[in-house]
């Protein structure tokens, strides 16, 4: 099998080590985000010699790099790293200032390939070209983003006309225009500023990275991803990780690694698609073979090796499409046919060889079955299950697929939750303008209750009383009083009674929906792929409650990769934010608007003394607090401005980003 692997043993070792380092750093960044507060910046750390003083990794089962997490060893196994070296690798990854090792391992990775080097170089070339082509075709797919923007603009306009009379007019027309301009400039100017920021923040020994060829880097990422998916850990009984498939922590570690490598994340997404498609192809192949015959295992091996040839076949034509029954992304098919003239049938482009190696390492075909299970080949898991049973008193809980990325082998899922809606389409439309490469779903829940409470709030806003107060400028200052709970304007108090009962019901339902969402994730309906959760208003509460529920189970941050809460009606002091944070492997964003007094009114003074996530930063390490006051004039702004906030957050970057100020001089 050695000939099918893309890397030399030494390179595999280095790759495994780097992955381990990335994994551990990712866990550190959970509570100490990169670039925000970094007390041990390694460049200036020479005087700090206490690096030796941490405990051994083997004694801290809470670590992601500990063997019980089941995150690292299967990867080592797939990479065919000798088990003698595992212990040392884990410890290396876990040393407190591991960053200094990164350069050394990168250098090791840059090593020449040895006797098979020309063959390997060809493989690297083929692979990286395929990745490029796939990435490019993904970009072309997203050309439609412009029209999406148009749609969003339209939606924004509608919303504004419908609801924002009371809120916006107080802020003058000029503000309105300003916001629109912002929309334009923000989306496109951002990119350049980003890179300066990035190189500053990644704090990596750049010299070593430049030693590595682009091809080598792509190859390493490809192999590592295959290793994450192949999951050959069946025999480890101590392993805490029940779930098969693509762990959110894996994805975060890969994201960091890609950042170290200075590889754009879209390339990584292209790699994901390629691995997914070739894995699906292999799994299909394996299934049909097993049904046909129960041959002695030797014959099976021949079949598995043939699995490695699938890639080659795909280069020549649509074989892959045939095998996967149309599941393969059009993107990859296009990419591969574009490749054909340049490379011919020279090499198996898709890393089927890698999977064959995985199977050999596991000694069974179980490896590939895990692959198939890992991203629910059909991808219909979420939408297929409307709520089969009613939980508690939740009447409606349903996933709807949006965007074009379904059944295309995307290895990450995004679930979007609205929470302030006037119409059923408000569950979908706020999210339509978004442009990323995730398989996206919106969660439609309790529309009746949500519409009721939203409308009640809106009605009250447009009522004479509120307008009166607004004119007096009361509302703009109310919030500060609310927070300190010194004074409640009497008029306001009376007014909220009107909203209160509906609000109480909606909050209660959101808590239950959160539990339901957690159950869905736990049962793996998303196909054991990492999930990104985004929600505003009560939708954010659903997500938070979901995380809390996950925290109560034995779960670690294996399911949820990223979370964005916008205008969240969640108490700060009363809730266990640390526990929720631990459930999220990557970034955890709290977007708040200091002017969202409506949220304050609805949430009531008694709770406000305990802090409110939607209007204040949360002082918990690891949570990115983002002030969106400039974008959010009132609570209903979230309907159309959520998109803008998400754009500025650039969720695909590893480290915290929010560029609200770029276009304001």
């Amino acid at each position, binding site marked *: 099998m050695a000939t099918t692997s893309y890397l030399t*043993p*030494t390179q595999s*070792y280095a790759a495994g*080590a780097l992955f381990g380092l990335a994994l551990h750093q990712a*866990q*550190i960044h959970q*509570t*100490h985000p990169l670039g925000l507060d970094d*007390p*041990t910046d390694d460049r200036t750390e*020479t005087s*700090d*010699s*206490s*690096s*030796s*003083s*941490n*405990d*051994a990794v*083997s*004694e801290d089962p*809470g*670590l992601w790099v500990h063997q019980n997490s089941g995150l690292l060893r299967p990867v080592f196994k797939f990479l065919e*790293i*000798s088990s*003698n*070296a595992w*212990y*040392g*690798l*884990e*410890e*290396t990854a876990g040393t*407190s*200032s591991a960053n*200094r*090792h990164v*350069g*050394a*391992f990168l*250098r*090791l990775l840059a*090593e020449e390939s040895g006797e098979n080097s020309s063959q390997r170089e060809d493989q690297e070339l083929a692979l990286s070209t395929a990745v490029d082509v796939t990435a490019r075709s993904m970009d072309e797919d997203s050309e439609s983003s412009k029209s999406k923007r148009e749609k969003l603009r339209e939606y924004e306009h509608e919303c504004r006309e419908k609801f924002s009379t009371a809120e916006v007019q107080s802020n003058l027309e000029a503000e309105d225009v300003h916001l629109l301009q912002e929309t334009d400039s923000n989306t496109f100017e951002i990119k350049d500023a980003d890179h300066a920021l990035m190189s500053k923040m990644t704090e990596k020994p750049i010299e070593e990275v430049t030693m590595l060829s682009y091809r080598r880097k792509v190859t390493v990422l490809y192999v590592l991803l295959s290793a994450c998916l192949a999951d050959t850990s069946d025999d480890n009984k101590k392993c805490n990780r029940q779930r098969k498939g693509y762990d959110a922590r894996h994805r975060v570690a890969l994201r960091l690694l890609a950042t170290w490598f200075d590889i754009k994340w879209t390339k990584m997404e292209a790699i994901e698609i390629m691995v997914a498609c070739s894995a699906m192809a292999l799994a299909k192949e394996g299934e049909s073979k097993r049904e046909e015959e129960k041959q002695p295992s030797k014959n099976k091996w021949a079949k598995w090796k043939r699995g490695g040839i699938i890639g080659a076949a795909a280069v020549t034509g649509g074989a892959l499409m045939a095998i996967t029954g149309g599941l393969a992304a059009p993107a990859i098919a296009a990419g591969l046919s574009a490749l054909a003239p340049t490379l011919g049938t020279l090499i198996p482009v898709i890393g089927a060889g890698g999977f064959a190696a995985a199977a050999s390492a596991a000694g069974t075909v179980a490896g590939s079955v895990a692959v198939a299970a890992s991203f629910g080949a059909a991808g219909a898991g979420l939408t297929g299950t409307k709520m089969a049973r009613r939980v508690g008193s939740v009447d409606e809980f349903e996933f709807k697929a949006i965007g074009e990325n379904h059944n295309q082998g995307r290895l990450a899922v995004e679930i979007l939750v609205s929470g302030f809606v006037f119409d059923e389409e408000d569950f979908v439309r706020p999210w339509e303008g978004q442009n990323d490469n995730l398989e996206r779903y919106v969660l439609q829940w309790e529309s009746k209750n949500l519409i009721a409470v939203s409308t009640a709030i809106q009605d009250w806003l447009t009522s004479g009383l509120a307008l009166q107060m607004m004119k007096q400028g009361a509302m703009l200052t109310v919030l500060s009083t609310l927070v300190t709970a010194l004074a409640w304007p009497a008029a306001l108090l009376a007014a909220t009674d009107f909203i209160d009962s509906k609000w109480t019901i909606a909050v209660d339902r959101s808590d239950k929906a959160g539990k339901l969402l957690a159950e869905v994730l736990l049962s793996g309906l998303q196909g054991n792929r990492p999930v990104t959760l985004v929600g505003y208003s009560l939708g954010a509460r659903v997500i938070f409650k979901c995380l809390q529920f996950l925290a109560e189970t034995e779960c670690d941050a294996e399911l949820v990769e990223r979370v964005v809460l916008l205008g969240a009606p969640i108490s700060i002091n009363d809730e266990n934010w640390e526990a929720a944070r631990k459930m999220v492997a990557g970034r955890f964003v709290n977007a708040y608007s200091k002017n969202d007094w409506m949220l304050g009114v609805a949430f009531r003074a008694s709770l406000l003394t305990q802090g409110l996530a939607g209007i204040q930063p949360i002082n918990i*390490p690891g949570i990115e607090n983002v002030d969106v006051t400039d974008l959010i004039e009132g609570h209903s702004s979230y309907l159309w401005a959520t998109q803008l906030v998400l754009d500025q957050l650039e969720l695909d970057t590893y480290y915290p980003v929010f560029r609200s100020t770029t276009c304001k001089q």
Partner: protein
Amino acid sequence: MGSSSNQPEFDYLFKLLMIGDSGVGKSSLLLSFTSDDFEDLSPTIGVDFKVKYVDAGGKKLKLAIWDTAGQERFRTLTSSYYRGAQGIIMVYDVTRRETFTNLSEVWAKEVDLYSTNQDCIKMLVGNKVDKESDRVVTKKEGINFAREYGCLFIECSAKTRVNVQQCFEELVLKILDTPSLIAEGSKGVKKNIFKEKAPQPDASTSSCC
């Protein structure tokens, strides 16, 4: 392999590093020390790591020992492990002269270059004394080198376990004799980033006995 899961209490934690040419018996020495065992080992890949609890000088010690690969191709890797080590064990094979000369020409320079610890204790170890008939490096030469370089010296055999315990013990006692190293190794310095907000640990801890 590895340590027991219920962690014994300890007073100090010291980081030790083993270096030297490929095949001089670093891993065998470590195995002999940690589990009183000897077997033919394949060359170490990258780095290995072992923990051993010992009592010395009336203190309970936890030794975190990093065993590096001697092979040339892993040389770049080794350099990043010197940092923070309180003790460095330089091993040569008494039956192969080049492993001895390489210590002064290669390894000693690496130590000077990469070790961050001024007071770090170095120990020269001549391994494989069980092959007395094949010996080419005399004890005298070893002593002279050690004196010149300012480090401890011992000859031992991982196979027969002669002087193996003594080797580590001497090193540890010497570390315990050095106040600055004790300060680094004391438990107070330990920081667990996942439990606290990782305040920059104060190097001066109440440790003088």
